[in-house]
């Protein structure tokens, strides 16, 4: 068996197990499906009047504006929940047995990431269908929407690799807040409710420096059919995946060393 097929076999095995656990356990599946829908309802329904603020100009409407945030948030939280499942696997002793059994351990990281990205496809589909049923206007073409989907997958991969790195270092469920809070803050320190130009004060500075802003603004430009800042968004997304990929692999080495 070549190194590549050993890697693939471990990655696919891990991904299958993770997805199987998810889809056979409603307590794990339902929150990850319902929370994004709930955020979409609360933000797009409750705050739609915000689109009347002077200077707010988003041609596809407030539902589409919030849909992009909710899609990226759901993708990121799919990664966070996958990080929780790694921590749970360490607490239950499964991860240690896995480290002993896996012929190519980097496949473990790839497997969890693949599971999270697959999860994003399901959650993203559900959120999109509900948003369309709620009357979301889509100005973008098929290619634009494909670009938006790629951004969601990059977000999912980056968040998963971040969560994997933390979970492999802490190796208990105590890692949960350490995984979740930075992701939550990064997302909410982006222009969630209004475009970045309408932010003022400290949040404007923070949002400008926040890589999630590039992803969010490009995603919104895709849905409105006027792509803008695409290179910056994909550059930021790929950079996040690369940095957190190294973080996750170093975490794996730490877990191996801890035995």
């Amino acid at each position, binding site marked *: 068996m070549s190194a590549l097929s050993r890697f693939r076999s471990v990655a696919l095995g891990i991904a299958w197990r993770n997805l199987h656990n998810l889809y056979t356990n409603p307590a794990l599946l339902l*929150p990850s499906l*319902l*929370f994004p829908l*709930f*955020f979409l*309802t*609360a933000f797009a*329904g*409750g*705050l*739609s*009047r*915000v689109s*009347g*603020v*002077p*200077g*707010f100009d988003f041609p596809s409407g407030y539902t589409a504006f919030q849909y992009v945030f909710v899609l990226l948030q759901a993708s990121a939280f799919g990664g966070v929940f996958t990080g929780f499942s790694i921590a749970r696997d360490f607490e239950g002793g499964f991860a240690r047995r896995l480290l002993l059994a896996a012929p190519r351990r980097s496949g473990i990281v790839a497997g969890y990431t693949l599971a999270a990205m697959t999860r994003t496809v399901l959650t993203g589909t559900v959120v999109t269908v509900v948003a369309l049923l709620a009357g979301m206007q889509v100005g973008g073409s098929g290619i634009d929407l494909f670009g938006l989907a790629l951004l969601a997958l990059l977000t999912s991969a980056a968040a998963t690799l971040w969560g994997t790195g933390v979970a492999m270092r802490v190796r208990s469920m105590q890692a949960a*807040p350490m995984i979740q809070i930075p992701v939550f*803050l990064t997302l*909410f*320190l982006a*222009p*969630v*409710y*209004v475009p970045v130009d*309408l*932010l*003022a*004060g*400290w*949040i404007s500075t923070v949002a400008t420096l926040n890589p999630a802003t590039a992803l969010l603004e490009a995603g919104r430009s895709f849905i409105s059919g006027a792509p803008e800042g695409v290179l910056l968004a994909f550059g930021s997304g790929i950079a996040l995946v690369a940095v957190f990929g190294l973080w996750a692999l170093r975490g794996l080495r730490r877990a191996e060393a801890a035995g």
Partner: protein
Amino acid sequence: MNSKLGTQVAHLAGRSVMRTLRQPAALIFPLAFPMILLAVNAAGLDSAASIPGFPADSYLDFALAVPFMQGALFSAMNAGQDIARDIETGFLSRLSLTPVRGIALLTGQLAGAVAVGAAQAVVYLLVGLIAGVTVQAGIAGALLILVFAMLFCLGFGSLGAFMALRTGSGEAVQGLFPLLFVLLFLSSAFLPRDLIEADWFRTIAGANPVSYLIEAVRSLIVSGWDPETLALGMAITLGIIALALGAASLALQTRLERT
């Protein structure tokens, strides 16, 4: 007999407070999370204050009422978790063999939750005042806000206690959090009800008791003394307390009979 009950309640309330103080996560998270959300939302939605008819000069003034409600939700979780742990570890069973009256356990636990909730509310109020919020109802209004916050903690803490006594499971209590979170987000927490554009959302917010609790506290901050809003908020708060406390007492009775 009454003084004995008072002593028992005082001991159990002290135990509840000490228990919270010994778990930094149970103390820091309910303090930090609402303040972070307040900072992020107040900055991100500041431009919403320019919507015609918005009742406050800044969004921060408008949003300061929300942390008091979030603090109460955390109280519900903490009170419920502590009682569930007492059931899971057998403390409640051992307690039932002593002369301690069952009702003392419930009252003591809730008194502890209210004490912690009051301390949290003082912090929220001080942070708001330091950030530049003026309580239009003056010092008496600020004191009434603290009374409301303590009553919210009592009402929602009783709900957490009911869940714990009914199920005996910490996980079931955790399941209450999304429900309470949904109640908060589907209320007038982010915009006044008359400015919510979507009819269906305005209807839900109008039927949601949490809207009236937030509006009572908010009225003291942004508009001064508004007897109608305050009376409605107080009546609903007392109604929640009566219902939740009654349900928790019945659940306690059933559990002690089973024990």
